[in-house]
């Protein structure tokens, strides 16, 4: 728990510092230190430095994956928070950011329902405040209000679903719930109760991952707020929601004999199609990326659907859950990088918001805007799934997991459905490329013809470093995906960690 504690203390320290105007500036330092220190602790625990892991029995590979993801995102977001943009509330913003990262790490490591819910709420509450504090976005009130009410509603739905889950399984601990559902708790008595639990949980989490039909808020909220907040909203809740979905739906409920895959299949097809098709008409960059993030949730749900329909000894790394996690990693890196790249650009006093604002960026005379343009192009190509970038392998993994049933010679009754799911996914991948190309086209193929507007310029150096880091990761994963597949593959079965009971009263038993 040390990394989580470090982050928690860092968040508290930031909030406290915010109360004293004289030392408020130190909050920046505290936040960086907290994230880096937590990262160092995770590094030591997972054995990066001295070869063997310091075992924390309640943490599994799954939790560690999300720890790394959370801390990495924390660094990128910290770097892209523009100093001076919301100077009055800088300390509070940083505190909220740390809390949100903490939330993601808690969800990844959660072993019971309460922790899971707590982690998700930590992200939500922190993002409400961030949305309210943000004055950089064009319509902060609208964004914050919309997000707040809908998020509260979804949390309530989710909680209601959890109560069914608890009632049927008789436990809060995830591993006990798994056993309970495996032995028929989900279909005990009236089978509709289990289905109710599943549908409510999925509905609540669908809001977090912006799955259709719970996606409506995303474009408006992203548009109304700043790049940094939009970045946070498009990666943290999505990652946490996916972690929760893997834990609850895949880890627990799929064992109960309910045909959950029907629901996820329908949601996946709708999400991926709606997201990609509507994105074609967007001219506002954050709206475009909002629809893109909806579409990517759909691609991940294809992996989820595949994972729900079959369990076979996995000889290859592209089983459904592993595919989902790998896709998530690739998506998160590219999206965070893209938003970070957008956040460093300014036209005069104004942030770059519309597709037109990017015109001629690659033909700029200065080096920095050109670098940003090429990086942004790389992120767009990665999101579009073009090799040799990370996103390609994500698409490969997801399609493969669906085709693993869909193209198998066996007479599986689900065969044709998963085959069509893969085909729909592939067609959508091509549709998606169209709007990513528009972004690239705006930067590379047009001249900056507006005389009255000012040249796009790059401010905020730390964010440029973050962009560079994301670019390196995107390329590195693209060229050598093996170890990342390995990480995603080995993480997915440990989503429901086994709790080792530690008694504080007596001396530990010796064997």
């Amino acid at each position, binding site marked *: 728990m040390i990394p989580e504690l470090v982050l928690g203390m860092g968040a508290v320290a930031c909030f406290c510092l915010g109360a004293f105007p004289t030392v408020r500036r130190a909050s920046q330092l505290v936040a960086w230190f907290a994230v880096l220190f937590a990262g160092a602790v995770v590094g030591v625990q997972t054995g990066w430095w001295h070869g063997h892991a310091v075992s924390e029995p309640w943490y599994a590979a799954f939790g560690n994956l999300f720890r790394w993801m959370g801390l990495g995102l924390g660094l990128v977001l910290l770097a892209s928070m523009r100093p001076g943009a919301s100077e009055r509330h800088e300390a509070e913003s940083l505190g909220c950011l740390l809390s949100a990262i903490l939330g993601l790490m808690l969800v990844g490591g959660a072993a019971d329902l309460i922790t899971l819910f707590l982690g998700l709420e930590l992200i939500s509450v922190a993002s409400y405040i961030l949305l309210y504090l943000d004055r950089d976005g064009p319509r902060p009130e609208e964004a914050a209000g919309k997000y707040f009410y809908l998020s509260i509603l979804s949390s309530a739905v989710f909680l209601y679903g959890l109560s069914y889950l608890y009632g049927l399984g008789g436990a809060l601990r995830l591993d006990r719930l798994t056993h309970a559902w495996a032995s028929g708790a989900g279909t005990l008595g009236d089978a509709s109760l289990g289905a109710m639990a599943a549908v409510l949980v999925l509905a609540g989490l669908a809001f977090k991952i912006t799955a259709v039909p719970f996606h409506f808020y995303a474009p408006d909220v992203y548009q109304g707020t700043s790049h940094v907040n939009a970045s946070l909203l498009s990666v943290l809740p999505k990652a946490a929601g996916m972690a929760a979905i893997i834990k609850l739906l895949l880890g627990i409920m799929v064992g109960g004999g309910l045909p959950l895959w029907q629901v996820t299949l329908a949601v996946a097809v709708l999400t991926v199609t709606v997201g990609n098709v509507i994105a074609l008409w967007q001219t506002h960059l954050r709206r475009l990326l909002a629809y893109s993030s909806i579409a990517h949730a759909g691609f991940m749900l294809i992996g989820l659907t595949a994972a729900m329909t079959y369990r076979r000894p*996995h*000889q*290859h*790394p592209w089983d459904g859950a592993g595919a989902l996690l790998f896709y998530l990693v690739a998506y998160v890196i590219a999206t965070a990088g893209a938003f970070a790249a957008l956040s460093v650009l300014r036209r005069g006093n104004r942030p770059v918001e519309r597709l037109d604002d990017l015109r001629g960026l*690659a*033909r700029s005379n200065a080096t920095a805007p050109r670098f940003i343009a090429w990086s942004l192009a790389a992120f767009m*190509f990665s999101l*579009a799934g*073009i*090799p*040799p970038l990370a996103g*390609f392998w994500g698409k*490969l993994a997801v*399609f*493969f997991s669906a*085709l*693993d049933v*869909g*193209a*198998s*010679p*066996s007479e599986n009754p689900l065969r044709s459905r998963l085959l069509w799911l*893969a*085909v729909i996914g*592939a*067609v959508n*991948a*091509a549709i998606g*490329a*169209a709007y990513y*190309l*528009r972004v*690239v*086209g705006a930067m*590379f*193929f*047009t001249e900056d013809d507006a005389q009255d507007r000012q040249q796009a310029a790059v401010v905020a150096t730390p964010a440029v470093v973050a962009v560079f880091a994301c670019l390196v990761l995107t390329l590195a994963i693209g060229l*050598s*995906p*093996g*170890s990342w*597949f*390995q990480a995603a*593959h080995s993480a997915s079965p440990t989503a429901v960690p086994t709790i080792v009971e530690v008694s504080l009263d007596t001396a530990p038993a010796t064997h």
Partner: protein
Amino acid sequence: MSTLLLVTVFLPVLGLPLVGRRRESARLASLLIVTATLLLSGYLAFAFPAGAGEFAVWETSWVGGRFPGVDLRLGLGLDGLSVWIFPLSSLLTFTAILVSWHAVDRGATSFYRLLLILLTGMLGVFAARDVLLFYVFFEATLIPLFFLIGMWGHEERRYAAVKFFLFTLAGSVLTFLGLLALAIYSAQSQPQGVLTFSIPHLTENLMRLRANGQLPLTVQIWIFLALFAGFAVKVPLFPLHTWLPLAHVEAPTAGSVLLAGILLKIGGYGFLRFSLPMLPDASAACAPWILILAAVGIIYGALTALAQRDIKRLIAYSSVSHLGFCVLGFFALNPLGLHGGLLQMVNHGLATGGLFAVVGMLYERYHTRQIEAFGGLARRLPILACFMFLLTFSSIGLPGLNGFAGEFLILTGMFERAWLLQRGELVLAVAAVFGVVLAAWYMLQLVGRVFFGELKEPVQGGMEAHAGLAGAEHVTGDHYRSQGWTGDLTAREVLALAPLGVFIVWIGVQPSFFLARMTPTLDALSRPATRASRSEAGPATAAAEAVDAAERVANRRSAFGRAQTTEGDPCRYSAGIACGHQNPPPFTD
């Protein structure tokens, strides 16, 4: 050799840092890198022993030893399919860099870097021995070309770049699913099957499944259609060709040269590499339909070319027509057609790549590509005209040049198929012959109007202004040359075109040398499909026997030598075609 192949493929990318900021140093560095790559790839190709199956194979595991059930490799190698297209990629990039010498002014560093990345992509596509690696290189070629068209193209470059990219991508994602489906199907059909992406292993596995009856025709056809989606767009086959004229016309000269010369070949290469050997029954079953599309494409492309006023557009439509010939040859599904199709891909690369380069040179001088703006240029630009004639004659299949060898083999193959298996397809064969006639018509008309008759040079509106500018700034510099200079070819331009001319003549007089290196691979890969097409045509007895009898006769009597059976020695018949009077060709071991 294997390490040499690895170095050759990645040399252009490794050389990227050498391409400096200044335009002069950038183009010089990239020219040196491409020359080195060209020499290496040429060495590899000519070291390729006749009669060999595979050559210079280099492999290592891609995902490491982490997943014992997965066989995913970084594997490179040359074989009969790739042995000539591989060095052709380097050769045309060499030409592309030389023709861009003055034409590319702005952002030269990025331009040459993208060309180098594109070269690695092209070399990799043809050398890849792994399905996923092939796809990675295949898609990776899109990105540099997308930027090349979009940033250095002509007026409608943005639309052309996006259309090119989306058309190709939309087809190729389905191809991707098809390739994955092949791997999955082959792995799951066997107990404890290893999921292999290695192309030779995959082919072998699928053929074993087919022999056991575990690869039913319906499965084959579905996967075939998925693969077809991507390859047909890339070729491009008739209804899917609309991106091509646009992309060709809008691309900068270097882009057109490489697009026509190499990238279109990936589609045909994909048919030969994946569709025919891995899904032979589906290939045989779909062949009649594809032949119809190919024949329609030949006639349609030729007629449309006849109606063009823009030289570049005319050549672009002629590509549609010529690529139709290649596909016609492949799906005739007999050794003659396959050899002809593969040879014709190389020929088309040389001829059309060269034609685009020549048009680029004209455009550089006169800033227009309209046919009616020119006339009698043969007197004004004699060297350029010479090259134009050579390329044109190659393109229309004048005997003695390479185009004739390819087209003749294709047509012979098509007539053989039509005569022996399916009389109705004679219509297609005859249509293809008309395509040859039409090709001669539009190409000679073009040459006649532009190079003969009264001397007519385009009025250059900008000439005086340019001259004034040049006088003011630097008289002898590149600027002056690129703007208002209308002299004949410089040494640089001759250097760009001469290698193409050498190969056009060489392939023309001695096709056996080139065919001999294709034969073993081509025979091995196409044998199942060839056999399947024969049994497809009717009850296995009559038709197949007729074919065998015909081939036995052909072996003894045909003017093409004695090598029509698959086990034979097809370089002989080509020798017969182009230089029947000569001694038996030396490369028949």
